[in-house]
């Protein structure tokens, strides 16, 4: 074997992996924060000092104290307990929407990317869905079909699907031009098998990155829906609901909005940071370089 691997001096070293070097610590902190939020949500009944729902008018709008670390809300409920319970809905919605949007988007995108006939129709529908402002659409769906966690999930998923579809489709469209796909064709490999074996794996890395953004966006939209009063029942403590109830007291007691706001922001921030870290590692453009 004389043709040993040539030294690839790499006149263009990928910039991706090092790009986040300055943020080296950020993904780790983000992961820890997210893990804490998840644990808090799971063990909410064990760790919360008070019932998040039972009202106690005597204790309304109390300042922080040893018993109520963040104070109480207008119905005398412990803010800390409510914020901890609030993580539950956010995470469930975030996870549920991500799974739904990625699975449906992947399926539609694969078909659309590989079958030209389906493509024209599917993409027009996706363009139409993209044109409708997602929050408007979601509020409309929720208010029409009734507010439950399922309708909220569906309402948030529908506007997310087109983004996943477009991503998957564009990857499939470029991957199907790869000679190894043509090689598979000339080896007599069937279309479904080419899709499954040669095309779909190309989408995994970018989809992982996209999934984190879908998750962050879903949690955000859920909070907006709750905040506008179009989310899950106002009796359920969600970050958006807590803030919505606190709106009229904002000048009196801003912390009622700022604490759940902080929790929400931290949650979305850590997911986004993890997504950025994943992209730096997995970015398809970086991975495509020959070596």
């Amino acid at each position, binding site marked *: 074997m004389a043709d040993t691997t040539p030294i690839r001096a790499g006149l263009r070293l990928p910039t991706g992996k090092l790009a986040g070097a*300055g943020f080296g610590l950020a993904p780790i902190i983000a992961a820890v924060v997210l893990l804490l939020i998840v644990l808090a949500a799971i063990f909410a009944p064990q760790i919360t000092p008070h019932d998040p729902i039972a009202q106690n008018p005597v204790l309304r709008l109390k300042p922080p104290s040893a018993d109520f670390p963040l104070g109480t809300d207008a119905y005398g409920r412990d803010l800390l307990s409510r914020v901890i319970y609030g993580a539950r809905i956010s995470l469930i919605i975030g996870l549920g929407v991500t799974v739904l949007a990625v699975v449906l988007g992947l399926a539609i995108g694969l078909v659309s990317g590989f079958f030209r006939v389906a493509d024209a129709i599917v993409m027009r529908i996706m363009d139409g869905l993209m044109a409708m*402002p997602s929050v408007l659409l979601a509020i409309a769906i929720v208010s029409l079909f009734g507010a439950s966690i399922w309708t909220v999930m569906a309402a948030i998923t529908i506007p997310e699907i087109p983004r996943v579809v477009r991503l998957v489709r564009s990857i499939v469209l470029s991957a199907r031009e790869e000679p190894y796909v043509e090689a598979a064709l000339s080896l007599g490999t069937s279309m479904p098998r080419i899709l499954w074996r040669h095309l779909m794996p190309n989408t995994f890395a970018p989809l992982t990155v996209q999934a984190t953004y879908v998750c962050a966006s879903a949690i955000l939209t859920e909070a907006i829906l709750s905040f506008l009063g179009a989310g899950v029942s106002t009796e359920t403590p969600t970050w958006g609901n807590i803030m919505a109830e606190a709106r009229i007291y904002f000048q009196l007691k801003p912390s009622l909005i700022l604490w759940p706001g902080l929790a929400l922001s931290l949650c979305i921030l850590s997911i986004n940071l993890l997504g950025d870290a994943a992209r730096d590692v997995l970015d398809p453009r970086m991975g495509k370089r020959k070596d």
Partner: protein
Amino acid sequence: MPVYFVRRVLAAIPVMLVVAVFVFLLLRLTPGDPAAIIAGDMATPAQLERIRDTLGLNDPLHVQFLSWMGRILQGDFGTSLISNKPVIELVEDRMWPTIWIALITITLSVIIAVPMGVLAAWRHRTWVDHIVMTFSVLGFSIPVFVIGYLLIKLFAIDLRWVPVQGYKAPSGDFGGFAIRAVLPALTLASIYIALIARMTRASLLDVLNEDYVRTARAKGLAERRVLFRHALRNAAVPVMTVIGTGFALLISGVVVTESVFNIPGLGRLTVDSIFARDYPVIQALILLTSGIYVAVNLLIDLSYTLLDPRIRY
């Protein structure tokens, strides 16, 4: 150019048709009698019948759709079920605050975000880059209404520089308008700035790796000229694209921001109509915002021909 123009305009038609079908079906697919949903629990049979009649619910579905579309194409978006005013009038009453805030937001965003992105790419992997990227990821992650309340807390409650809420028309009292518009615009701009700055940086970094940038350097041009003359224009198309697609975020943001700042614009009208189940208004508003989104993106598509001579059809 004319061919490209015609093609793009024609391509927008099916998109709007899909929106129309979706909006139309949204009401018709609702479980139960749409008329009953709209009228609420206390409605009398006579009221229900009146609503059905107004909405044409007694006709077959496709007839309903066609007549509805026909009316819309003639500019008739129906009548509000609550105020009994034509929807067009309601929209006309409420659109100016929204338009003003949106215009300020877009201008502000582009003016702030593009230089931020350029700076970050130019000083890639330095502290400047890191600060810009940190701002950008924060802008993405902190929800609009949280930013809104933070700004209110800081500038209206603590510092008392601006009023907490409210809106004044610019024609009457421009100072009053400006002082009330600044916080909503900043709030709305946060995510837009994050988006545009990030895309400017990414696109410019890509372009800075291109061969022709190396050629420009090999010609002995000053770095600044390489950046502004060669790299920036080539990086512009993805940035324009994201300004267009980001418009959807802006529309969603408007709904929230107008609630936070109590601005009587289209966003508030939307939320109010949805809670009042004022169907003709909701339909019109979704159609309208989608139409604006499509139009904005069409304009941006067409602007590519000015930026890149290779795009001709």
